[in-house]
């Protein structure tokens, strides 16, 4: 029988349809290593990769049929086995579903969208950034293990690679009704650009770009700066880019070193997703656009002349 440390932090690692650990995994294990001993759970393929991220022990369960429920069954079995001090799950769509079901099944409270976890003299504390970063709050559970979902891209800590002990996990199926997955296609990610949520630099475009073709200007600027590409909801609604790139209240929250808003008015719901950026640059032809209220460097003018000139100036210096 394997034994587990008293300060075990159980981390559920998401996997991709092609059997890889999801990009969120390193930060989850990193966060766990800050406050305890990281023990990973991988359902399906990908367990081999968890040690390299710093998981001391890796529980491996086979994938079952149906949406979410087989994973919840596996986490419940893992909790029973390791008696963790905390359970950390990615605040991804899949992760939130697992966390929600798990909380209801085990009667745990749940701390959602934590941006950090630390330990004080009372135990483990989850940190949150709410209302678009206007408030920082902390939460804890009255008793029992802390169950938290971690915002992707919010944690910089990484654990050192270890030789992990891989432990097969027996799972008793709950028999809870699950939705059927009829077909599945992996999301194709552009590998040459940094991931939006954790990027140090982000260039976002809005309705001011006017068309999907013109949006290429935003992409060129992002590439010149080594930045990720983001967008406003109006740009997503107009079909210039997929929803995954939406920054704001109902999209992704980012806190990069540099945020460049091109042709974005800066509606309050957009600002909610980017106003904690270190430096904000805005290009907009409307001098009264609200984006200027939060910009460190604002330019009133036509993006179609300013961005090409900027690209040239950046290129000139490089050459």
């Amino acid at each position: 029988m394997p034994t587990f440390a008293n300060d075990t932090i159980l981390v559920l690692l998401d996997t991709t349809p092609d059997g890889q650990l999801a990009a969120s995994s390193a930060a989850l294990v990193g966060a766990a290593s800050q406050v305890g001993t990281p023990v990973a759970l991988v359902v399906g393929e990908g367990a081999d990769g968890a040690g390299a991220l710093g998981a001391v022990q890796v529980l491996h369960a086979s994938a079952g049929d149906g949406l979410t429920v087989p994973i919840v069954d596996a986490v419940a079995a893992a909790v029973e086995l390791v008696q963790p001090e905390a359970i950390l799950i990615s605040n991804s769509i899949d992760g939130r579903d697992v966390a929600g079901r798990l909380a209801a099944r085990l009667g745990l409270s749940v701390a959602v969208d934590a941006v950090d976890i630390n330990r004080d003299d009372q135990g483990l504390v989850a940190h949150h950034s709410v209302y678009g970063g206007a408030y920082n709050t902390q939460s804890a559970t009255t008793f029992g293990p802390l169950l938290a979902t971690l915002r992707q891209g919010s944690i910089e800590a990484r654990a050192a690679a270890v030789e992990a002990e891989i432990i097969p996990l027996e799972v008793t199926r709950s028999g809870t009704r699950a939705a059927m997955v009829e077909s599945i296609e992996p999301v194709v990610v552009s590998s040459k650009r940094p991931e939006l949520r954790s990027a140090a630099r982000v260039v976002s475009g809005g309705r001011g770009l006017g068309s999907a073709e013109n949006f290429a200007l935003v992409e060129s600027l992002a590439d010149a700066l080594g930045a990720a590409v983001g967008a406003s909801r109006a740009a997503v609604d107009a079909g210039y880019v997929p929803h995954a790139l939406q920054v704001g209240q109902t999209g992704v929250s980012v806190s990069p070193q540099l945020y460049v808003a091109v042709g974005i008015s800066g509606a309050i719901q957009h600002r909610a997703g980017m106003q904690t950026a270190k430096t904000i640059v805005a290009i907009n032809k409307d001098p009264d656009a609200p984006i200027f209220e939060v910009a460190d460097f604002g330019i009133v003018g036509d993006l179609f002349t300013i961005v090409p000139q900027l690209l040239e100036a950046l290129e000139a210096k490089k050459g």
Partner: protein
Amino acid sequence: MKILVLVKEVPDTWGDRVLNLETGLADRAASEAVLDEIGERAIEVALSYADEHDDTEVVLLSMAPESAAATIRKGLAMGAGSAVHVVDEALHGADLSLTSEVLAAALRKSGFDLVITGNQSTDGVAGVLPAMIAERLGLPQLTALTEVTIEAERVSGRRVTDVATMQVSAPLPALVSITEALPDARFPNFKGIMAAKKKPWETWSLADLGIDGEHMGVPRSIMTSIAERPPRQAGQKIVDEGDAGQKLADFLRENRLA
């Protein structure tokens, strides 16, 4: 078919939203209250099915303070047939566990074939309630749908996650949550607004649902601290005189951002 749609009153995102620095709870008096946009889209999904199927009953369910009644009524004005409002002093500041327990109990009491919710509210943005409720009721959950097809015995749709796009389905009864990729909701017209005043409305308390809101024998999430971030200050703003691209390149270099 009986469709229950979960709706929520939230502070209008167009205004400044305020948390009470002592209680950590939303300061409801500080902002305009509106029906959450994602809940309106959920109502729209139900109504567009009802438009095509005469024997469809669309019921709104909300757990909210008494004062939210006027906001919830907007959903009736849009076309929903009736509303269930769960009101209880003990629910003030309820955490997600208690909220899901209450909504699940109300759903059980009301009965349904299909439950439709938004994927995330615009104030709490937790996004875990749909799964919590599904677990409590033993239902299959189809979350984060960007397209929904409702049929007599089954619901299906397209689900876009962080890593995949999939087609999912479940026989009824089931619970779905939708994203803002679904269409904007219809506007209530004058006739709808007048009709809404006469539609059936039930108000249930925790006692009606057999729940003890003060029960501390289960773990509860508590806020242990809260701090307001200082608002951002505007920096320099220049008007392009033909060299703004160059100036921006200089700014980025000076700040080691390019």
